[in-house]
């Protein structure tokens, strides 16, 4: 579905992404893990069009999408969420969701004044859909709350909800579980799984919570120092020597070894 070929992103002399190549297969929930500073979020930002690539190529279903703007990618069905949840803080949760779909007739000045009925019909349909999404995410009671005032975890759910307002093909989730309590995390996990099986969404998610990864993701890609270090099933990855080393550092691992030996 998404193929990344030899992608580089340099900030001056710092190579945040340094020749990463990977593939995200259609219909999977692919996990992307790696220690802090491995270049995961930068990779996301480049794929999703928030940052220009220094070199390399990204294709989506065979089509070159390198350097397209986030807006253009949105129309191709590539959506993302942010590590720190973004929301339109002065609008209600329902309005936030209703902002998502494109091509609404209320977008033109002409229709604002002369196409009132058509807009009203569209809005009614959108509203019903937004309510459906809120119910799916078990936050229907927050529909009329200002999005800026709900909890961090609920904002993350709302971000996931945004991807459900349109027919996304692939969704990039940047630490959707970070800073979210256990109950909400389970809700988010269930929602992701259901979207994957029921609606055929492909997911690629950056995550630090290994239980969460183990439960949802197959395969898991490990990044370190801007490169892809390993790829495989979650259980194999967690046993992988190189991965443990990248995560814990050599010193700590030696210490563990000596402790085990002693």
């Amino acid at each position, binding site marked *: 579905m998404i193929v990344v070929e030899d992608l580089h992103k340099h900030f001056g002399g710092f190579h945040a992404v340094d020749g990463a190549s990977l593939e995200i297969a259609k219909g999977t929930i692919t996990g992307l893990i790696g220690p802090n500073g491995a270049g995961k979020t930068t990779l996301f930002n480049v794929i999703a069009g928030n940052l220009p690539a220094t070199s390399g190529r990204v294709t989506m279903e065979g089509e070159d999408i390198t350097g397209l703007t986030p807006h253009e990618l949105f129309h191709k069905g590539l959506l993302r969420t942010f590590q720190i949840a973004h929301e339109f803080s*002065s609008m209600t949760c329902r309005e936030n969701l209703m902002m998502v779909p*494109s091509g*609404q007739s*209320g*977008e*033109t*000045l002409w229709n*604002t004044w002369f196409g009132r009925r058509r807009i009203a019909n569209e*809005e009614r349909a959108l509203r019903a859909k937004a309510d459906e999404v809120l119910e799916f995410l078990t936050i229907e009671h927050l529909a009329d709350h200002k999005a800026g005032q709900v909890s961090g975890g609920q904002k993350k759910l709302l971000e996931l909800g*945004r991807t459900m307002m349109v027919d996304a093909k692939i969704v990039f989730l940047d630490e959707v579980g970070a800073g979210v309590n256990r109950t909400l995390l389970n809700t988010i996990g269930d929602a992701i799984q259901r979207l994957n099986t029921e609606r055929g969404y492909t997911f690629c998610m950056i995550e630090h919570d290994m239980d969460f990864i183990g439960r949802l993701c197959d395969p898991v890609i490990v990044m370190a120092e801007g490169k892809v270090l390993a790829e495989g099933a979650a259980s194999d990855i967690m046993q992988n020597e190189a991965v443990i080393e990248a995560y814990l550092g050599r010193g700590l691992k030696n210490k563990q070894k000596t402790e085990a030996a002693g």
Partner: protein
Amino acid sequence: MDLLNAIVAFLNFVFVPGVAYGSQLALGALGVTLIYGILRFSNFAHGDTMAFGAMATILMTWWLQSLGVSLGPLPTALLALPVGIAATALLVLATDRMVYRFYREQKAAPVILVIVSMGVMFMMNGLVRFIIGVDDQRFADGTRFIISARDFKEMTGLREGLTIKSTAALTVVVAIIVVIALFWFLNKTRTGKSMRAFSDNEDLALLSGISPERVVAITWIIVAALATIAGTLYGLDKSFKPFTYFQLLLPIFAAAIVGGLGNPVGAIAGGFVVAFSEVTITYAWKKVAGYVLPAWEPDGLVQLLSTDYKFAVSFAILIVVLLFRPTGLFKGKAV
């Protein structure tokens, strides 16, 4: 009786002019604040956009007047306003297409856009002077006063007269209508919500169905309408002279920043704060003081600043706000 006279003098020389001037500043500041919120730069060309809009309206008014068209007691300029707005909208859309879009695509820093807008300001400045000249232009017609000082004195028997110019009343009425329409638009329509979304979180707005170029274009059209209305009302109430619009930039920015850049409610409040500060500080309170405390009627004018220094007031407000509360009264974006 003296107290009543004092109140009338206050209303006549401070309150009425303050409300009219405040409405004009509020409309100007709304334009600045919308550009700041959505396009993310301080548009220095706004004063001259107002001048251009007023000029287009004046030219149309003169043409209508030459045809003998009039609105009776109301100024003919009201009839010419839509044409002025359309002309200004075309101008700013063309400017955006030719100038600002280039820098947007480069993802230029806001400070670069500010300098670019100064360039645009000088161009518009020249354009307006080239077309209509640098002199004062008169285009007001219709009834001059709703209440004249003499009528008021005869009616009430007071020594002080109250004058309400029809242009001042018109300014306030039009400003109220425009503000209501704008807020309805921003809060209730899909386009208005897209604009708010864009102002709230650009990254997220780009990740949804909102078309950024359309939001930008609609913002410019609305700003052109606000600028033309503000410019024409100011011209009707005072007089039209291109240089005064250039000078208006300072109080308008002071108003937008006092209220909190990017916040429409703040822009309106800021407009009135700046207007009333200016009027109260430059007004000679001798007369009012004389009525209130006849025994101690002061010898001096009791004027804190000469009207020549009225812009110093805006400037002082601007500095104080930037030093102590850079986000403004209503929590705009930090400057």
